[in-house]
């Protein structure tokens, strides 16, 4: 076992099951039913029933997406959380990876032997567009009067990154090409496609420099994991996937007070997780990664924040095929948010679930070429300020 010099835990924590619904623009299921579908699959894959579950952790981003207040409580029956210690966690888009983090401390503390961890988002309820929900994340006095939308801040951040690192749109588009292609092998995928850099550049300009194909789609969906203590994990499976490190940090919510070209919130969260996992050289010790990719440049940004490449080095490595499924350090082998889809909280948990499937060699056609021992998943939330990171190993 990897030593954890900086932390005392009652039990090592393993992931023993995972489940996912289709990610689609408009699902017929209610949010509760989506949560249930993912939770049931996760239980089945662990060979457990609801009776075997001690505690439940639910993750969902703003209530306003599903249009149901207190979504955690609303989702509780579908998530198997009735009459159990159940809690909902929420750090915006970072929620998906915060779910296994919260589930981890439930088990690591010795409080629960098994946790069902469920993340759900249904983005298709809001009219005219779920984009309107994001209006509430801006300062009502300084920013909202300008009529911002989410694409603005991404566009500003992307432009800053392009300038700081001297990166072209052509290079950034390669991320979209790679992830949408990877997603062709994901059974849940919504936006899988064989596209070219030209397709990205020729797609409609939304908010320059962001084109349509630089962006992940609007999605409904849910994902779930089952976590267990070491004793319990060894009882139910021969191939547990260990959670070796977790980390999370919050940067300033006032986004103009930061260097937009480098995601410090990710770096700090990653440092916390790597320290716990005993990782000193992540670029060497991590075999593959699921960095958060709601926009294509964001994957490069986050690869650098995760210290898997030096600042401004990721675009060059990308061009060399370093991050391909057959590359030195595959990133988003799942297909990521760009390819599989982006039901906010569920998308982050999908990334954590991909670590589980890859580390069990159960990813099928998505399995990366190289042998894998350790992977990292990461998500980001709200106004670029919440970083959540989880490291898993087999």
């Amino acid at each position, binding site marked *: 076992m990897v030593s954890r010099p900086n932390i005392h835990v009652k039990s090592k924590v393993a992931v023993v099951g995972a489940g996912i619904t289709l990610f689609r623009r408009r699902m*017929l*299921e209610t949010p509760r039913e989506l949560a*249930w579908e993912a939770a049931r699959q996760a239980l089945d894959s662990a060979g457990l029933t609801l009776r075997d579950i001690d505690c439940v952790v639910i993750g969902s981003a703003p209530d306003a997406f599903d249009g149901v207040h207190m979504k955690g409580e609303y989702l509780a029956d579908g998530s198997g959380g009735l009459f159990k210690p159940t809690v909902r966690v929420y750090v915006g888009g970072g929620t998906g990876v915060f779910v296994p983090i919260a589930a981890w401390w439930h088990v690591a503390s010795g409080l629960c032997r098994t946790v069902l961890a469920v993340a759900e988002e249904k983005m298709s309820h809001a009219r005219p567009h779920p984009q309107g*929900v994001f*209006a509430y994340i801006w300062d009502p*006095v300084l920013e909202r009067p300008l*009529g911002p939308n989410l694409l603005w801040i991404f566009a500003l951040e992307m432009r800053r990154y392009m300038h700081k690192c001297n990166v072209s749109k052509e290079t950034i588009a390669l991320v979209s090409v790679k992830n949408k292609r990877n997603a062709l092998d994901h059974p849940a995928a919504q936006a899988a496609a064989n596209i070219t850099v030209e397709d990205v550049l020729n797609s409609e300009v939304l908010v320059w420099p962001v084109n349509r194909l630089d962006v992940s789609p609007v999605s409904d969906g849910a994902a779930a994991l089952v976590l267990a203590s070491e004793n319990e994990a060894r009882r139910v499976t021969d191939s547990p996937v260990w959670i070796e490190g977790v980390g999370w940090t919050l940067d300033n919510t006032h986004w103009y007070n930061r260097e937009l070209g480098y995601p410090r919130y990710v770096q700090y969260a990653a440092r916390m997780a790597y320290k716990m996992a005993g990782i000193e050289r992540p670029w060497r010790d991590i075999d593959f990664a699921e960095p958060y990719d709601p926009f294509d440049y964001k994957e490069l940004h986050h690869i650098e924040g995760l210290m898997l490449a030096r600042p401004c080095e990721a675009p060059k490595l990308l061009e060399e095929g370093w991050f391909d499924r057959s590359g030195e350090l595959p990133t988003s082998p799942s297909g990521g948010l760009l390819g599989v889809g982006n039901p906010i909280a569920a998308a982050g948990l999908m990334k954590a679930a991909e670590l589980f499937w890859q580390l069990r060699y159960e990813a099928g056609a998505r399995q990366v070429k190289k042998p894998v021992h350790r992977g990292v998943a990461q998500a980001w939330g709200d106004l670029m300020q919440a970083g959540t990171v989880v490291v898993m190993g087999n």
Partner: protein
Amino acid sequence: MNAQWSKNPWNVYKFPGRMEVEKYVYTPGLHGLEFAKALKEGRIVGTKCGDTVYVPPTTFCPDMSRGEVAEVLGPWYIESYTIVYESLDGKPLEKPVVIAVIAPEDAEGALVHYVDADPDEVYIGMPVEPVFKPPEERSGNILDILHFKPTAQS
């Protein structure tokens, strides 16, 4: 949103905000759709899990297995009730409204609905039955049930 600001009557600046999501369009879900269809036909359905039927239907059972759509026939009884005298904005209602939790004998769970009865005569345990709109006015909505009314005692 325009960058407009105005002065309020107390001479303090205010920055008006506005809801950008104008409305939500919800899906009823899998068994929810069956529930809606049944209402249109003047029936009420629930979800059968093992030997127990649950209403309203939820697709999934308490043990996380998938349930089957099943008919709920009643009879229905008032489990609890309240009487509303004021509207949401505090105006007195012309006629008090009886709201009740109404449980069927042949299923677990209940519906919340209006009861068309004299507030003085309503009691817990009162047998009631659903009154549906005329078929041509139904739209697959909980309001296809106009209200419940006391069952005529024979």
